[in-house]
């Protein structure tokens, strides 16, 4: 046995480009990373940074037309990019499963929740009706739904948002996937329910030996729940590293700006926020240089001309894309 951890997912130079009437829109522009077994990786970014498109591309869920995907996604040894629908169907549920953002719309409103869990058990695992029902009830219990036998025949409309998200997780877990992709799993839920759902995902990850990708815009969600994080901006990775390293020793000015602009419960009231001027760029009109340069306080001529590639910070596994990085010692947030 080698000491190198086993890679469950290897993404290499992945791009996703949508054809729009206004020209090509590079939503994901050349991304490489990997995930080890039993690891939680966070992907953070603002809206439009490409995090959702990235996670859908990894799943192979992009639309059939008007989209070009290049690069490679190796999931548990299977190539997802370019795979046919039939091939992908073999991996979905078993190798990778997804929890979508909106628990209100990701369930079929006119189908009992038990049937929605049964579906993948019967189709994918070929279980009998009775066995599937027994397993579905087990899954409902696993995700912490009280009186699962009764809930088995409930409709989604009879459940609250938090309960519905638990059902969505139960569906995702039905075939014991090796990788669970959670795209904003708690956005739209209340804070107390959010804490319940995040604890549940954590607990299930340990129990079922899964890897988890947690996609979110909320730095608070990834801070304590992930071992590594990726910070995305305008379709690219701008910083990647161990969570603690990225939070305390970030080198990319965008990461710092993102941390400083979010209000903190621990700060006294009326603390002046350090806002990032401007707004995220139009992906159809990206400059040749760094996408963050127009909003960056440290930008120089070179930043506008030439795109920085990811470079190592010295710490293992910590990379950032910046020509004028923050000094290593001053990376910690000032507040």
């Amino acid at each position, binding site marked *: 046995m080698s000491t190198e951890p086993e890679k469950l997912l290897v993404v290499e130079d992945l791009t996703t480009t949508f054809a729009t009437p206004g020209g090509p829109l590079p939503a994901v522009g050349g991304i490489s990373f990997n995930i080890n077994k039993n690891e939680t990786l966070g992907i953070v970014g603002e809206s439009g940074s490409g995090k959702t498109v990235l996670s859908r591309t990894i799943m192979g869920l992009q639309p059939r037309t008007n989209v070009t995907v290049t690069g490679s996604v190796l999931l548990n040894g299977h190539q997802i990019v370019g795979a046919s629908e039939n091939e992908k169907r073999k991996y979905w549920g078993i190798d990778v499963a997804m929890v979508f953002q909106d628990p209100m719309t990701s369930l079929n409103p006119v189908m009992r929740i038990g049937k929605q869990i049964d579906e993948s058990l019967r189709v994918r695992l070929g279980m009998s009706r009775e066995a599937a029902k027994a397993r579905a009830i087990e899954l409902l219990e696993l995700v912490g739904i009280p009186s699962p036998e009764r809930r088995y025949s409930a409709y989604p409309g009879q459940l609250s948002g938090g309960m519905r998200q638990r059902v969505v997780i139960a569906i995702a877990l039905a075939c014991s996937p090796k990788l669970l992709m959670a795209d904003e799993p708690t956005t739209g839920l209340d*804070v*107390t329910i959010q804490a319940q759902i995040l604890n549940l995902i954590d607990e299930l990850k340990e129990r079922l030996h899964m890897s988890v990708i947690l996609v979110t*815009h909320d730095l608070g*969600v990834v801070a*304590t729940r992930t071992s590594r994080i990726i910070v995305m901006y305008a379709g690219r990775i701008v910083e990647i590293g161990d969570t603690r390293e990225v939070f305390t020793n970030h080198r990319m000015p965008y990461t710092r700006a993102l941390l400083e602009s979010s209000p903190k*419960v621990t700060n006294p009231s*009326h*603390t002046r*926020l350090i806002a*990032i001027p401007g707004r995220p760029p139009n992906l159809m009109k990206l400059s040749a240089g760094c996408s963050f340069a127009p909003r960056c306080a440290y930008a120089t001529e070179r930043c506008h001309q030439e795109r920085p590639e990811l470079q190592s910070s010295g710490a293992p596994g910590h990379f950032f894309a910046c020509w004028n990085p923050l000094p290593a010692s001053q990376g910690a947030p000032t507040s």
Partner: protein
Amino acid sequence: MTDTQQPLLRVRDLVVNFGKGRHTVSAVAGVTFDIFEGETLGLVGESGCGKSTTGKALMRIIEPTSGTVELDNVDITALKKRTLRGARTRMQMIFQDPISSLNPRRRVKDIVAEPLDCWFRHADNRDAVVSDLLNKVGIDPSVYGNRYPRQFSGGQCQRISIARSLAMRPKMLICDEMVSALDVSVQAQILNLLEDLKAQYGLTLLFIAHDLAVVKNVSDRVAVMYLGKICELGPSDVLYDSPAHPYTKFLLGAALEADPDSPIHGDVLQGEPPSPMNPPSGCRFRTRCPNATEKCAAEEPLAREIAPGHQVSCHYPLAITRK
């Protein structure tokens, strides 16, 4: 003079019921608070706790079932339609969704000018007033004045909403989840802008939001709502440092800090809020409260002051630990 002690807005036993008879939902079940001139009161709570309904009932966008709302000693709830319109110019509201709260078929400068036109104010120098308002919120009127809302991002639309709400020079602004649809980087811009304008125009704010960190950032005092009632109200720094109501403590414990060293709270609040159609007897939080006793079921806890300006509705408030 004690004019700083005179509340600008005085809300007493505000009740809003939806529906009739057996199907009555009591969204706001008797809310009492004051807002003093020049201060910001934050109103936090989870979805369905009645915080937005409270905000709308103050403006009578939703008619309150009972209770009084006094703005500058004028009882809004007793006004006839015509005088209510006049009173509303002094209290304006900013809504959650910046894009849908602007008329998509009107130009930005006309949107901001509409309140002025309705009230025949500044008829002679309307354009100058509108330009000044747009400049104040950071939108260049000569470049963007003739554009339509769809040509702007969410953050810019929220700036336009703010300009419109200031056109009547209101004394009071009600901000209902005004930054929750925005990204953090834009959210910080809008929150800073709001603080600047508050100082410049001498505004008094009711800031309604679910995000605890955002509310603390802008508020002088914070009220926490649960299932239609205020369970705790106090100066924001005190309330966040030493919450006295068990619900406030759980709510703060569930808030996630962007800090890898912050502890993960094991004691997460279990269950979900009960239905407001059939609220629990006594204390509304008792079904989820670890400290609940029979007294909590039998007797509703009334708001009582445990420290100057810090009131809590709980039979067994948590020990105050001053830092």
